[in-house]
């Protein structure tokens, strides 16, 4: 009998030891949507946090793309097994805010005695993720679209660089195709609703929806079926039907058509830097988004995602969450993250630090997105977008606009239909969330 008890006691001791070491560090879960190289960067930043202190352990778990992460979170929340932190894209802002499932970041940080000073953040980031100056989520990976171009192709067609306005850029793209430099002068990105429409309206300072693009209330209406935006879609249609701008379609990602040297330009998130640096075997560069002639361009709007804190956890867990956010907002972390991923730093201090290091002299294209975001003071049209049911609306707009590309509908009609489908979804959102933000 003796040996048996001995084993039992040993096992018990081990169990206790295991428990006590687990109790020492509070473990929290962080579900994210980053894959490939970016997924590795997330693991790295989490490891840096875990190594930086002994009290908390963050466990990063990749849960697929943004839609899948959100779906997983919803299912987990309904089953009361939600993680502490979830990464959700900028589009889901209202869905998350009005979910009743989140703790606002401002509130969390105040409770933990680590208040966030939003004045240190880049303006379009704060305006997107804060309500009345209170951050609802922790900005994590913020980006904005810029124009990447193949310098070899531009030189071969006799141009130094892409023109700053659409009026200068369009003939250049036509020439690249006409001179046979490339069969594909531009490739349409998969998220063109963001890069070609929303950002176009911000940069050219025209309203996309009423009530400051939804910032002032749920009773907003889309108005992108008038004026310059119609012209922009007409332009896109002309580029597509003349074959100057190509659609990547399924089976390949648009940026791959740029990095393979097949397409000469792409308007894509600055986070595409990772893919371009890794794969482009030609002389490439990037520049700011083109704008309309005669317009003083405004700041572009952000894309990417923020970290949301979910309800239903113990105070110790929230302490860990706050410590992690605090770590993320640190200048060192931001500078590292910015340089390692291509996303923009979310604080001005981090931008200044990167500049002081001479980083932008060596990597000038990394500065474009930051400069473009910080350009001027955001106007009512460039604060960002606060649109309910935005996933539905996004799909509807893309469907209608692509119907115009295919020649199934005239551009004006496609945009009218997109507006009415969008407004219908907005009214439904208003009906369900009456009296909320």
């Amino acid at each position, binding site marked *: 009998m003796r040996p048996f008890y001995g084993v039992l006691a040993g096992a018990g001791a081990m169990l206790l030891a295991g428990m006590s070491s687990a109790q020492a560090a509070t473990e929290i879960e962080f579900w994210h949507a980053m894959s490939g190289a970016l997924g590795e960067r997330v693991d790295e930043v989490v490891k840096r946090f875990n190594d930086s202190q002994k009290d908390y352990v963050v466990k990063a778990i990749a849960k697929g793309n943004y839609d899948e992460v959100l779906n997983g979170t919803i299912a987990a929340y309904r089953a009361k097994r939600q993680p502490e932190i979830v990464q959700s894209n900028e589009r889901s802002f209202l*869905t998350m805010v*009005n979910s009743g499932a989140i703790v606002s970041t401002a509130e969390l940080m105040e409770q933990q005695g680590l208040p966030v000073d939003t004045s240190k953040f880049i303006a379009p980031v704060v305006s997107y993720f804060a309500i009345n100056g209170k951050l609802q989520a922790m900005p994590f990976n913020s980006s904005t679209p810029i124009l990447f171009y193949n310098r070899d192709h531009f030189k071969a067609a006799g141009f130094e660089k892409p023109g700053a306005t659409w009026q200068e850029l369009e003939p250049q793209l036509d020439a690249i195709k006409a001179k046979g430099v490339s069969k594909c002068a531009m490739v349409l990105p998969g998220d063109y609703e963001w890069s070609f429409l929303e950002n176009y309206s911000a940069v050219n300072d025209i309203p996309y929806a009423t009530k400051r693009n939804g910032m002032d209330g749920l009773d907003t209406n889309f108005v992108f079926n008038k004026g310059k935006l119609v012209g922009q879609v007409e332009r896109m249609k002309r580029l597509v039907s003349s074959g100057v701008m190509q659609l990547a*379609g*399924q089976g390949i990602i648009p940026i791959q058509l740029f990095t393979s040297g097949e397409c000469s330009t792409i308007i894509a998130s600055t986070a595409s830097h990772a893919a371009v640096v890794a794969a482009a075997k030609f002389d490439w560069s990037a520049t700011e988004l083109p704008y309309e002639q005669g317009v003083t361009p405004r700041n572009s709007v952000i894309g990417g995602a923020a970290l949301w804190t979910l309800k239903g956890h113990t105070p110790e867990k929230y302490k860990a969450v706050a410590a992690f956010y605090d770590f993320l907002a640190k200048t060192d972390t931001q500078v590292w993250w910015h340089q390692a991923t291509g996303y923009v730093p979310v604080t001005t201090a981090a931008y200044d630090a990167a500049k002081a290091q001479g980083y932008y002299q060596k990597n000038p294209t990394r500065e474009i997105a930051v400069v473009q975001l910080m350009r001027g003071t955001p106007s009512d049209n460039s604060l960002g977008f606060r649109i309910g*049911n935005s996933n539905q609306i*996004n799909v509807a707009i893309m469907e209608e606009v*692509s119907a115009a590309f295919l020649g199934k509908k005239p551009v004006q009609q496609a945009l009218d239909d997109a507006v009415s489908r969008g407004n219908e979804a907005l009214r*439904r959102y208003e009906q*369900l*969330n009456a009296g909320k933000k």
Partner: protein
Amino acid sequence: MPARSDTATLPAAAGGGGLRLRWPLRRLLLKGTGDAQSESGLKRAHFRDWRLPFWLLAPQLFILLLFFFIPSIRALIQAFQLTDPFGATTQWVGFQNFERLFRSSVYWSSAQVTLIFTIAQNVLTLSLALLLAFASNHILRGRGAYRTVLLLPYAIAPAIAGIMLAFLFNPRVGPVAHMLQGLGFDWDPNRNSWHALALIVMAASWKHICYNYIFLVAALLSVPQSILESAYLDGAGPIQRFLRISLPMITPTLFFLIVINFVYGLFETFAIVDATTRGGPAGATSILVYKVYQDGFVTLDLGSSAAQSVVLMALALFLTFAQFRFVERRVNYSV
């Protein structure tokens, strides 16, 4: 009766779980159509006590309850609600979701696409599978190898099949697309709705040919050799024998496959669509079941998604009923 049990064991032996539902359903639907020769002889005699059949059925019923009845009831409830994805707010909205659906031109065009897609997929799948089954029954050398190769695509996950086809037929980079373009055919599923539709029909059929093929091979093998031989002696060639004798004799299997193909096309093809075209371009390949998935899981419009799945469920019931009621009359069950 013997003729019936003959046709019944044939596809079942070939491995079809789908058949389990068939006989009770047939009995139910055919009651009073004049075809109902009494089948009561089999029923009660075997089980004197209700407990044994109950326990035999219980596992299957439990699975059905968990994966069919509970979700269906929840979908039915949700179809009359407007709800926040997280479940924070729920409103009863009556038929609002259905009204919205039937008012939407997008939904009707999706229904139209679905009709074309399911019929084209059915015709293509069945005719190719029939051709292959006929051919492989006539090949003597390496018949087993051919059959194995023909069955392989069934083991491929729909998403992988879809992505592979999307890549092969991608007008920019796909080798097959380049070949088509080389032949002077302006292939571009990104811009041409019909090309995109053809692509998903191909992807869906390719995945399902094997399933049809297994059943057809087994059915063809069950055609009595004596009849074929006597036709041979009368001077009928292989094609004539196939068309005049084998084909009429395997109509029950064909009928079964038509039903299964419709159900497959209506319900099981969303993964293929998602991987191949994502419903594009401009909704040209957004079939009904893909819309259910997209509206429910991508755009989080749960009410509409639920209403759509209720409509689809009703449609499937109606189609199956109509097929059994009208098409099966022409099916020859007696050998």
